[in-house]
């Protein structure tokens, strides 16, 4: 184990009403393996940044422990634990040059200047900033500042690398580019990393495992595919990607029945939906549903009408009305698959592969 959080809890006084308290993180337990990149994913206020700041040592946990390589570091101040953070605002020191920024962590460890110069140069190479060492940071673009922040964090080869929404200040195109680069560099240097974001696409693209958080607690932990395809709760299904929920009634060990307007359909499910009791919802991703022209459909297939059609180039998105139900459908390669207009009558083909089922509440 490289990083282990046990029962980590943080309680703040409520800023509006100091007598009340805010339970920002509630007994969070998580083990991150050596070299792994784990993302804390959740909406703002879910406690993910607070958890990260506790790992760095900027916040003192109310309860619980933080272990790095088997050593309890819970009580240590930030400069005495071997973590390095890439900040959302980059936190580049404005009075130091790029090279001085990158070498800062080494200079605090009293590494000889020649050695610092050598390692700074190789790090600047790694993040594709070779030759910019003498620059003042205010003459760098946002993406370049991001690279400086990354180089500065990894130069000391910390035991744990922490990312606090590092891409949120970049524009969309650059964000994707930097995302892939962070992933590649993290793989190459192999530093155990915790990454905080509210962007599910970023989490999917980067992570070995995703920790979905809600109101200070963990909702689900798993690899991106599992979190997306087998969400454990309604919240996870909804937060990670877009989704249709259909009320599901168990009809067998591996099957549920859903109602689509006047029609009903049976769906295979991944796990046993459980018998009776709590109401269940089937999780249908928009891209798992296919649309056919009503004329070409089998007589038994559910039918509906296109209420809204949005053509996005690579995909087309439809909102299909089936009696009281509205289904979100996303069609890839729409030109080849056939485009529908608003008002068109369509038939719906539900997925044949097993879908996920979550508790309704």
């Amino acid at each position, binding site marked *: 184990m490289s990083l282990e959080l046990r029962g980590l809890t943080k309680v703040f006084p409520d800023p509006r009403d100091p007598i009340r308290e805010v339970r920002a993180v509630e007994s969070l337990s998580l083990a991150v393996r050596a070299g792994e990149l784990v993302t804390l994913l959740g909406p703002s206020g879910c406690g993910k940044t607070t958890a990260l700041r506790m790992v760095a040592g900027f916040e003192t946990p109310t309860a619980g422990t933080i272990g790095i390589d088997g050593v309890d570091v819970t009580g240590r*101040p930030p400069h005495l634990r071997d973590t390095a953070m890439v900040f959302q605002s980059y936190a580049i020191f404005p009075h130091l040059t790029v090279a001085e920024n990158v070498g*800062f962590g080494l200079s*605090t*460890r009293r590494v000889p200047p020649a050695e610092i110069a050598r390692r700074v140069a190789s790090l600047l190479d790694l993040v594709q900033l070779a030759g910019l060492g003498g620059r003042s940071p205010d003459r760098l673009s946002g993406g370049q500042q991001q690279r400086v922040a990354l180089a500065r964090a990894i130069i000391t080869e910390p035991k744990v690398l922490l990312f606090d929404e590092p891409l949120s200040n970049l524009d969309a195109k650059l964000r994707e580019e930097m995302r892939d680069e962070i992933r590649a560099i993290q793989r190459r240097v192999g530093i155990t990393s915790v990454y905080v974001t509210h962007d599910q696409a970023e989490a999917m693209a980067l992570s070995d495992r995703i920790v979905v958080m809600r109101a200070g607690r963990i909702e689900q932990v798993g690899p991106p595919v599992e979190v997306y395809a087998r969400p454990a709760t309604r919240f996870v299904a909804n937060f990670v990607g877009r989704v249709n929920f259909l009320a599901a009634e168990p009809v067998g060990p591996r099957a549920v029945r859903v109602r689509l307007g006047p029609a009903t359909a049976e769906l295979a499910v991944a796990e046993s939906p459980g018998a009776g009791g709590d109401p269940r919802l089937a999780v249908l991703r928009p891209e798992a549903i296919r649309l056919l022209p009503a004329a070409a459909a089998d007589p038994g297939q559910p039918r509906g009408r296109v209420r809204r059609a949005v053509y996005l180039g690579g995909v087309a998105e439809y909102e299909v009305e089936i009696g009281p139900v509205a289904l979100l459908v996303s069609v890839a390669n729409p030109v080849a698959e056939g485009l529908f207009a608003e008002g068109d009558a369509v038939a719906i083909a539900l997925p044949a592969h097993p879908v996920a089922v979550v508790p309704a509440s």
Partner: protein
Amino acid sequence: MRPRGRRRAAWRADWRALTAEPVVATAVVLLFALLGLFIVYPLARVFWVGFVPDGAVSLRLFREAAGNWFIRRAFANSLLMAGLTAVLGVACGYLFAYAVTRTDMPGRRLFEVMAILPIISPPFIGALSIILLLGQNGLITHHLLGLRDFPIYGLPGLLLAQVLTFFPVAYLTLRGVLESISPTLEDAAMDLGASRWAVFRRITLPLSGPGLASALLVLFIESLADFGNPLILGGSGFPVLSVQVYLQVTGMFDLAGGAALAVILLVPSVTAFFVQRYWVGRKRYVTVTGKPARSSLKAVSPFARWCLFAVASGLTLAIAAFYAVIVVGAFSRTWGVDHSPTLRNFGYVMGVGLGTIGDTLLIAVGSTPVAGLLGMVIAFLVVRRRFPGRRTLELVSILNFAVPGTVLGIGYILAFNQPPLLLTGTALILIANFVFRYVPVSIQSGTAVLHQIDPAIEEAAANLGATTAVTFRRITLPLIVPAFFSGLTFSFVRAMTAISAAIFLVSADWNLMTVQILSQTEAGRLGAAAAFSVILVGLILVAIALIRLSLGRIFRYSYQASFS
């Protein structure tokens, strides 16, 4: 590239813009006339009298001054005093600001409020308190320690008074500087393994550098120009230039010699001013971005926190003691002899000084709105309109920051003592002096706010058919109301507490409370001086409270900028 040609083209474009708007043109011409008459002309008179003593250009007065060992000592003393006050005051101000912004120590609110007190008091109240506490009949020296002739007159006493008077100015500047340094930077440095001391030494201190340099120069200028404290505490053993200028004029009736000394005094002040404005003022690190950063307050160790708490409490206690002793002194029968409570001092003040209190209020109330409005108009024109001489206008209007009050006082006597500009002896000369002496603060707060207001808002008004005058009145003025009133408050406080220039300009008809306090102190009537001071500070506090109450309810904004 042909810079000359381009500059001329730009000038011509400015000129065309000006002639296209008669209101702006009239305002600009009027402003230049006013600033020329009340700022440039008096200073020019000082130089004229100094350099042309006998109808011909001559350096005779300066040779005489340089040959006089007493004047040479006064000059050296002035620089020593100003240098030491700047260093000590900035050190205190920085520690105080660091304690308030970087820790969550108890009593921070109280510290912040107490640090404002010296700023809204006459600048020499410290000297009066020091005499009451540490003088011949001082509470501490004589009564507690039994000392007879404690040497409080001279540099140590003067430094104590000046540091306590001026450190709040440094504190206010540096608090802003520290608040603009994102705590995330300190977190980042600590995260990279820097110890708390290393974080301070390698991150916080260098980022405060430009602010510290600027505060040093501002305190140097203020201390150099300070008049009341050295007059009371310097004595003949520690002469300083600002006082010598005054004594030359009033003691020896030597206006020309006084003017020459004033020119000498101007040299270090103006040098410091230009260094501050054109070199230090340009260097700034902006590290706070839009999103508020969460601070962990981990950068201060528990021990350092206690040290900072001790410093802040010490300074606050000293200020509290200064004011407490004034209040006690005002209600004591005879200071140092009989401390039984009495209202006799107030009776005396009401007897001899009621007219002075009225004069002081009238002149302050008369000059304040003029300074406030003038400041906003100048700020608007300088920031938002292009016209030939825009930079000159701005420079001239804030030049008075650098001119010691005594120099300006001499200038006003020299400039306005004969027809057609016979103003000496009237209230008008005092009002004019205050308006043009304190307008720079209004201009600065106005420009700062205007730079933050998107010009598109005003462009929208113009686009909808409003003229420049209408735009200013209906759009700009309401938006800069906070700056306007903070400038107003500052001007009022300064007009109430001014001494160095005013002491040349008061007359039998129009006298000021500050001048009364000074002369009562010099005459040894400490009780009366203390009573005057209590009334003066009381009036200022009431006025500030009134302004806050009435306006704070209408416009929800912070007055914190009022005194910076």
